């Protein structure tokens, strides 16, 4: 068995003294793991950092084996991001959450969106709303997509302002007025009707929205907490 695909390094675990097990989100084959012989060498360590784009060749005798990766660097982004706290927090959040995807199941939309965010990380105003959209996409790919097109109560697509935490469906301002303290805020930029770049408070609302459903459907059932770095992003945005 052999395949070759480009991918983003999500995580690397030490294996023995000189090797490593790399977890890569590939463009067409989804999240894949493999042994990288010599993965802890001086030459390979800078390549095997989360966020780097690589060309991975996977080989194994049988499909169900862990297999071996031969890794070639394409774009080494990690080194460019580690100097700034929020970029690094975004990178850590993205790679940690992408590990929630099932293994060996293609998710090309998530991959492409993740590449877009990685490219946008140097721009402090661009990546936060993209991260919210990416998390919405992640929920969708995991089978827990939110319905933000119409109001769950009235069916209208106008003036949607909330999301029901029970159903994950949008609620219009009028229909939700009486229950607004129990509903999640739907930021305008997620409906594509906001002029200009979303502000920090919009992004925080977005992260609260996706965070609620990620906790309920993904982190909670797996017994793992949300990445610490995600909390840092929210705290940082709150001070801007």
């Amino acid at each position, binding site marked *: 068995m052999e395949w070759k695909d480009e991918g983003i390094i999500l995580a690397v675990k030490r294996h023995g003294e000189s090797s490593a097990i790399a977890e890569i989100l590939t463009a067409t084959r989804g999240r894949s793991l493999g042994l990288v012989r010599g993965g802890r060498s001086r030459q390979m360590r800078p390549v095997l950092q989360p966020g780097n784009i690589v060309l991975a060749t996977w080989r194994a005798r049988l499909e169900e084996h862990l297999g071996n990766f031969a890794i070639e660097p394409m774009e080494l982004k990690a080194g460019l991001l580690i100097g700034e706290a929020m970029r690094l927090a975004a990178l*850590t959040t993205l790679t940690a959450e992408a590990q929630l995807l099932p293994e060996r199941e293609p998710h090309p939309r998530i991959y492409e969106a993740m590449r877009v965010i990685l490219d946008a990380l140097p721009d402090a105003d661009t990546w936060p709303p993209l991260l919210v959209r990416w998390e919405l996409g992640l929920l969708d790919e995991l089978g827990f997509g939110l319905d933000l097109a119409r109001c769950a109560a009235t069916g209208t697509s106008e003036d949607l302002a909330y999301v029901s935490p029970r159903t994950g469906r949008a609620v219009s301002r009028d229909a939700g007025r009486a229950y607004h303290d129990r509903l999640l805020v739907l930021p305008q930029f997620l409906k594509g009707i906001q002029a200009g770049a979303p502000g920090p408070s919009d992004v925080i609302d977005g992260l609260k929205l996706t965070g609620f459903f990620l906790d309920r459907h993904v982190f909670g059932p797996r017994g793992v907490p949300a990445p610490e770095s995600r909390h840092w992003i929210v705290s940082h945005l709150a001070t801007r």
Partner: protein
Amino acid sequence: MRRTTGPEIERLIQVLAKLPGLGPRSARRAALHLIKNREKLLVPLTTAMEDARDKVTICSDCGNVDTSDPCTLCRDPRRDRSIICVVEEVGDLWALERAGAWNGLYHVLGGTLSAVEGIRPEDLSIARLVERAGHEGVKEVVLAVNATVEGQTTAHYIIDRLKDLNVATSKLAHGVPVGGELDYLDEGTLTQAMRARRPF
């Protein structure tokens, strides 16, 4: 499988094979070498290991390993007590001491934050570091953690925890290693080196 040696020798080989750098084959050779040099190697090694087992402890101040608590470095009156260098592991502390690059105190974290491994701030010696940094007389905390995503994530977290204290924070420079050739360096290192360029 047919047994070729007694269980004690097999056990010695098995234990040696767990050491870094030794596999089953090299462990067998090491065991044989120890047995052949019983008085010269095996007995002193046994004594040294028993001493280490009985006396080695972890410094309650900095997390270094030594035979006394506080450790030799923490007790050394010639060291500058106003600066603390934070490292991930004891091996990093030893590397800095070998280089003779530091004359202040150290603080060993015991690892890095890792979402993959489930290592959280409370699993590391961060609270103790904040306590030490808050002591009167500490002026600077130097973060000498690895230039990896996990190492730098930990560094940023620590800087955030120290921001309310009246101490300066700094981190190691990234750049071209001694003997390094630009052609073989990764883009990240090259970019960092270019950004951190100095007048010549």
